[in-house]
């Protein structure tokens, strides 16, 4: 990998002071599974300083508050997929992280890196969207929290600067009794880039009326998005087949509305309709997740 200089840091404090001192452009390197691939394209990082944040203890691990799960940005996809806490409190994210790349990638690539890379096909993003994820960012010692949607501007572009260190990813715990689902459409099981993902979170009361509903797609829109109009469609209802069809239609209509008519649209829209129908029918059929 070609770069100007290399600095390994062992703590957030050390990272912040390095970011203050370094002159010129910086690349924050966590697992590095995206950066090392991109580095093969010409001299992309030739004038940059690589700040290696891999393994900083404060950035690794998962904890909980009453209402939220707090995931260190340096936590790997394998650790998230294997965490009983995530499985129990935010199962859709565990499922999404389990489909990322291959075991070798999941063992090294981090959730913070997945966000910073901002690939529209990143598997974690749709799951993070339905969990209303926020990120905590440390900018030269100043800490701020922002919704994930605001952190990603468009494919491969975040609103963060090169001195902004993502320290935590915070997701809402799913309401007790909720069901969630993560669907990935790829060309093969391992190592496939998602053509489409669908993340769903749904809760019903004792009468079967929907109390919580979030459903969105990944690898389809330029950034992770939730749609209030879609999410309101089932609230308060005991969904009929017609209600489910209406959600399928409305969500598939978002594809040309937001991404524009692309060569893949004629393919994605029917897949979206069919899968939304299948997922919701299954979820409402009482197949509780885990």
């Amino acid at each position, binding site marked *: 990998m070609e*770069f100007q*200089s290399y600095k*390994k840091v062992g703590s957030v404090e050390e990272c912040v002071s390095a970011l203050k001192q370094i002159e010129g452009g910086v690349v924050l390197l966590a697992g590095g599974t995206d950066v*090392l*691939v991109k580095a093969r394209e010409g001299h992309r990082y030739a004038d940059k300083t690589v700040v290696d944040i891999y393994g900083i203890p404060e950035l690794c691990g998962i904890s909980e508050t009453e209402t939220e799960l707090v995931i260190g940005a340096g936590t790997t996809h394998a650790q998230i997929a294997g965490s009983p806490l995530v499985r129990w409190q935010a199962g859709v994210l565990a499922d999404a992280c389990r489909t990322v790349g291959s075991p070798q990638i999941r063992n090294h690539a981090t959730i913070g890196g997945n966000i910073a890379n901002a690939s529209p096909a990143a598997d974690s993003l749709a799951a993070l969207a339905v969990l209303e994820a926020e990120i905590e960012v440390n900018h030269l010692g100043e800490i701020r929290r922002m919704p994930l949607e605001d952190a990603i501007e468009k494919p491969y572009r975040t609103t963060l600067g090169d001195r902004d260190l993502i320290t935590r990813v915070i997701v809402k715990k799913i309401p007790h009794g909720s069901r969630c689902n993560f669907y990935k459409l790829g060309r093969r099981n391992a190592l496939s880039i998602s053509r489409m993902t669908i993340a769903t979170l749904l809760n019903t009361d004792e009468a079967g009326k929907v109390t919580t509903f979030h459903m969105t797609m990944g690898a389809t829109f330029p950034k992770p998005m939730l749609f209030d109009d879609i999410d309101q469609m089932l609230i308060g209802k005991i969904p009929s087949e017609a209600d489910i069809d209406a959600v399928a239609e409305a969500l598939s209509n978002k594809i040309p509305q937001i991404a524009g008519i692309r060569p893949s649209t004629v393919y994605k829209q029917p897949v979206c309709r069919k899968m939304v129908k299948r997922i919701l029918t299954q979820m409402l059929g009482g197949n509780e997740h885990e």
Partner: protein
Amino acid sequence: MSKIPLNFRLNGKDVSIEVDPGRRMLDVLREDLGLTGTKEGCAVGECGACTVVLNGEAVASCLVLAGQMDGAEIYTIEGMSETQIGRILQDCFVEGDAVQCGFCTPGFIMSAYALLKKNPHPTREQIREAVAGNVCRCTGYVPIVSAIEKAGEKLPD
């Protein structure tokens, strides 16, 4: 660029070297340390030929920067004959015709080693999942999965 010192354990032995920080772990292993058992296939983390075990986890050494080896415990194919799991895997791969051209074999063995270390008696499904990041163009995978399954049967509880 000035070199950086690296101290790590490789195949059970302490190693201290100085390397160019721009190198990948794969280059350090193959070129600086002469351990050419780890293969370079695609160089973008999709084929698994360069798989090694870093702190107990299978990783693609083409996507690990040299500096990330510092302080780590690393196993490569060269260290496998020193381990019980490695020896059993080797026997089972040979007996089960799980090797044809052999280029992918070190990567498969390392993914299998990481699996068996954590889960000595995996199911076929768990094996398939553990080697899902390794590509083989010769065998059709069945003999490889069977060899790993056999190794799991031979391992003590």
